[in-house]
């Protein structure tokens, strides 16, 4: 039988707070992390965001990083989340030398590029950030900081990057190519992404309302989250906090940014994940939906879920209203939430929901719900038609 791949540690930093405990507390209190931009310098101060309220200066101070470095904000957030994941798994410095690292990032160090772009030619003072724009550089800064020396790579598939990183890590362990790997994603708020999504007219000026009939767009967020995955022979003497049981990746092949109305890619990703997990669809106790609160995503995702479930749809919620849409980190943040759901037997609420969508009538869970949770399905979809579904289970 498929036992899945053991998760032995996790770490997170988001608008809900720094660390798993702070995030969990906010989730059970139904307290969102949505505010207006204060650390991100932008004209669009009226657009709500899920901002981590710790400045780069304070992140650097906490991580004991000296001046004159090339750490961008996504790297700093990533370092903090990896640090917690390593600690919770109890990894030693020696173990890190053979540990793999797979990180998702969509815009890497764009925060530095947009700050210094116009001065690079006239001043040398920030030239160390020139290569920092690219996602692989962000990954390298995180792995260098922690001296992680195993197989290292970066996945950049927009908003499904973090979920894909978890999938790749699980596959490499299953295939025996790696014994231990840290997987997840990081992205920070940037003017580039905020203005990009704003130009697409898919940012809401209110707190986002996933799956609500009057939903009118997403809130952008930032954060980082990582899991430690280990092969059986290493995990057997450790506390296993959950398992990556299934994964599926498919392409919608419909449009560069919009999802097809039928949710073809999403349907295929979920179906493949269930097949890899080797469980019947009815076994899923909770769906942590992608649920960005754009008109397009929530309709497409609802249709795909309804295609998978001809009869009763399991408890479902989107946690985007808590954290904002953290792009490449989203799948990783939601993996941490999925594992918390399994550990605590809780379904986290879909905030700001009032009226079901006319087309689907889907009713998400709107208040914290206690029930036995054994299997969680988590969806992450991105630009380029990229669709990824992950299935997490208890360690049983």
């Amino acid at each position: 039988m498929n036992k899945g791949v053991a998760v032995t540690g996790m770490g997170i930093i988001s608008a809900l707070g720094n660390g798993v405990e702070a995030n969990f507390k906010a989730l059970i209190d139904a307290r969102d992390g949505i505010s207006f931009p204060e650390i991100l310098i932008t004209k669009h101060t009226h657009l709500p965001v899920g901002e981590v309220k710790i400045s780069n200066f304070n992140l650097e101070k906490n991580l004991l990083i000296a001046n004159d470095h090339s750490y961008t904000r996504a790297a700093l957030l990533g370092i903090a989340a990896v640090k917690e994941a390593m600690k919770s798994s109890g990894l030693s410095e020696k173990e890190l030398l053979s540990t793999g690292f797979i990180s998702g990032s969509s815009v890497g160090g764009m925060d530095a590029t947009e700050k210094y772009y116009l001065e690079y030619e006239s001043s040398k003072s920030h030239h160390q950030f020139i290569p920092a724009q690219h996602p692989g550089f962000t990954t390298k800064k995180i792995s260098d900081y922690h001296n992680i020396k195993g197989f290292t790579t970066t996945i950049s598939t927009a908003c499904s990057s973090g979920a894909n990183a978890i999938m790749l890590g699980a596959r490499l362990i299953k295939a025996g190519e790696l014994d231990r790997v840290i997987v997840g994603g990081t992205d920070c708020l940037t003017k580039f992404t905020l203005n990009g999504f704003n130009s697409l007219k898919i940012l809401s000026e209110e707190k986002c309302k996933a799956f609500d009939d009057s939903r009118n767009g997403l809130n952008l967020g930032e954060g980082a989250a990582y899991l430690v995955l280990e092969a059986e022979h290493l995990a057997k003497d450790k506390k296993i906090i959950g398992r990556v049981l299934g994964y599926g990746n498919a392409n919608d092949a419909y449009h560069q940014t919009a999802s097809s109305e039928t949710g073809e890619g999403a349907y295929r990703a979920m179906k493949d994940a269930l097949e890899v997990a080797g469980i019947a669809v009815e076994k899923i106790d909770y769906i942590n939906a992608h649920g960005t609160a754009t008109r397009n995503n929530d309709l497409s995702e609802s249709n795909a879920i309804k295609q998978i479930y001809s009869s009763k749809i399991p408890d479902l919620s989107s946690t985007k209203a808590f954290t904002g849409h953290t792009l490449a980190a989203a799948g990783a943040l939601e993996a941490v939430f999925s594992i918390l759901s399994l550990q605590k037997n809780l379904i986290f609420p879909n905030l700001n929901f009032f009226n079901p969508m006319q087309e689907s009538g889907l009713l998400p869970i709107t208040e914290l719900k206690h029930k036995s949770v054994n299997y969680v399905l988590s969806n992450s979809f991105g630009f380029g038609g990229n669709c990824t579904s992950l299935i997490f289970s208890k360690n049983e």
Partner: protein
Amino acid sequence: MSRAIYITGIGAISAQTEESIFSEKPVIYNSNIFQAISPNFKEYIPAMALRRMSKAIKMGLTAGKIALQDANVELPAAIITGTGEGCKQDTEKFLESMLAQEEELLTPTSFIQSTHNTVGGQIALNLKCTGYNLTYSQENASLESALIDAILLLKEKLSMNSVLVGGVDEISKKITSFGNLNGFLKQGKIDNLGLFSQRSRGTITSEGAFFFNLTTEYNENCYAKIKAVSNFNTDSSSVEISEKIIDFLSRNGLKLKDLDIFFLGKNGDLEQDKIYEELQISIFAESCQLAYKHLAGDFNTVSGFAIWLSCLILKKQEIPAILKLNTVSSTKPKNILIYNFSSNSNHSLILLQKP
């Protein structure tokens, strides 16, 4: 049991052509940044769509389609892409508008096309391929990461018979030119063919797309067998790297003497090339040594150019003199090792074999 994996179709767009290299008439460039030679994109992409596409999308989609046609595959089961710096032209366009217009009145087209997985997504869209689709962006090990995933995928799913895998990177006006500011590019008078004799810091850069159809089914059109691909990190001393290379070969049942060709990622940077040069006079002293960055420039996915050349060398059983770094000859090349690294990180090894 692990299955053999073959390259059955190749497609490449770079600053050289198959003809320019195999007829020993390489295209000469006198600038530290030079563009890829465009094929007639209209033969592959509808004119309407073409107008909105950056060079990376045009090159990637076209090279992908050439590789599939070459392999006689209509629809691959998966598309895996590597790109070190992604869609820089669209990124730059959106970024510059945003800065110039102070975050006002922006149009989304260039933002939409700025994500790193645009090329992989556009190939899927063009082919209506709903299969597995992933994009890696690990600096100069991006294409290698994509290859590692492709090999894993073909070993996991026995039903999978075709994976399109490739690397693409483009030049953009501003971001590429930043290489003049931070020492990445050579300054002063440059001739690409003289890259290795200049003995100075920095390199030259260009752009390109290199796609390959991978399958587990052997056929007579096969170019090469992909034996293995590996990325590793090390505190690069040539001794430690030598050990890693020997270990990699032995895991694949080979000894140093079995290697016919050692394909090096030398880029003309005096400091960086020291490692390669130490390997040239030690473990690879008896092997036929080849280089390629003097022809296609140095960029994150240019190792695809070396894979493409290796495929042609194995098929034609002919080694163009313009690639040669030493006088050791190889009359019947069978085993080729491609080794690349950049700024002391992302070391990668690709082992190809005549099928």
